């Protein structure tokens, strides 16, 4: 079996192609993994209530 694998024309090429395509698939997966990373969460601020002071210290109930 081992002799047949290493000594049959074309089988070697299939081995090369299998290795090459596997590596290619792994690298495509790696690139996709980077591409599909989620964006940073958008900072959502709660709507201000009447009693809450403004960030600059103005407004709100005094």
């Amino acid at each position, binding site marked *: 079996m081992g002799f047949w694998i290493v000594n049959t*024309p*074309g089988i*070697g090429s299939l*081995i090369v192609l299998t290795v090459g395509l596997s590596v290619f698939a792994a690298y495509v997966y790696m690139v996709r993994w980077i591409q599909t*990373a*989620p964006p940073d969460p958008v900072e959502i601020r709660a709507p201000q209530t009447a009693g809450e002071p403004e960030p600059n210290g103005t407004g709100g109930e005094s």
Partner: protein
Amino acid sequence: MMDRTYQESELERTVLSPLRQTSPQFWLAMAVLGAVFLWGAVMLVRQWILGLGVTGLNRPVYWGIYLANFVFFIGISHAGTLISAILRVTQAEWRRPITRIAEAITFFALILGLLQIWIDMGRPERVFYPLIYGRFQSPFLWDFTCIGVYLLSSTLYLYLPMIPDLARMRDHMTDAPAWRRRLYTLLALGWHGSHEQHRRLEKAISIMAILIIPIAVSVHTVVSWIFGMTMQPMWHSTIMGPYFVVGAIFSGIAMLFIFMTIIRRAWHLEKWIGPKQYNYLGILLLVMSAFWAYFTLSEYLTTGYGSIIHEQEVLHAKLSEEYAPWFWAMLICNFVIPFAILVWRKGRTPTGTFIAALAIAVGMWIERFTIVAPSLTRPSLGFEKVLYAPTITEVAITAGSVAFFAILFLLFFKIFPAISVWEVEEGEAIEVVHRQAEALARQKAILTGS
């Protein structure tokens, strides 16, 4: 029109400037290189029409300078990826401005290396023969496997650190032609630069940097086995693998110096590619020169003392007969000139290292030639001594290949930035933090009186 609301940094402006405008010198260089390439291409077509008889190849010298070119190009492909990967893994901060140039050399050198095999086959359609008739007992197939994986890995290793820069160009180089904007958009992969995306990119680059080192070593080891697995005198040697790898790294660093210096000068990158890079890489080149000399001495001394008759004939051909001028020129180029220049701190300047690197590039090509040709002119099995002299066809195709390599390299850096902008900016930010930390430590020491 440029995006007016965006303020470019000095680095970005300088790096992107050659992408926006083209100097007359660039067109002149392209014209000269293009003419040489055309000469080589015409001679290649002529070789396809008339056959390999137009070369100096004959029986038993079935490999000549095309194979020397193949080994040379595959050797210089170690410039990039291996050097860049080692420096990345060891976190050498000075690597940041030069990694992209190194990685691009790898990519184009590999393509040119593979083209040499195609040229050596004599007919274009024979490129399919290894696929049809390939048997895995042949080291050629091992070579195809390793080079194929190395090419895929080097392409990704060149591409990954480019993504943030491509996104920057997609967003801000609105003055670029439409096809280039489309290209940047396509290659930027929708990069938005979130923390998670940055983390994944850094992780992928780290994985590739570690993976690529054994792959690169395997490539040149297997290239050497194409020679080492035969019974030819001075090829059938266990030292060939490491000897080839050392030679590859040596010629790779030299090629990095040559292209780094050209790009630095032509693209005005003196502020970022400076004395630090030349000094550290110069020391590395010196060390590799010493390694190469050590391996050469080991190989030739062992052969000399072995007194095996076929090997003695090849050795004499190199030391004192028709290949002696090549052999001694190789020693001068690879050892004497680099040592005379690089051993001094004052020699490790852009000019000094450029001269040393040019000598090494020539010397390493000669080394490949003196490995390939002399052994075949005096083979083990029953041939009379023959001569091999490259014809004008081989010289033209070799010159055309070198010109093609330079054209691809220059065109690449007319479209993409020669320095990894985001990585250099990251390095500058790290340096600022380090300086602040040192200042704080000094203040603390003063306050505590220690």
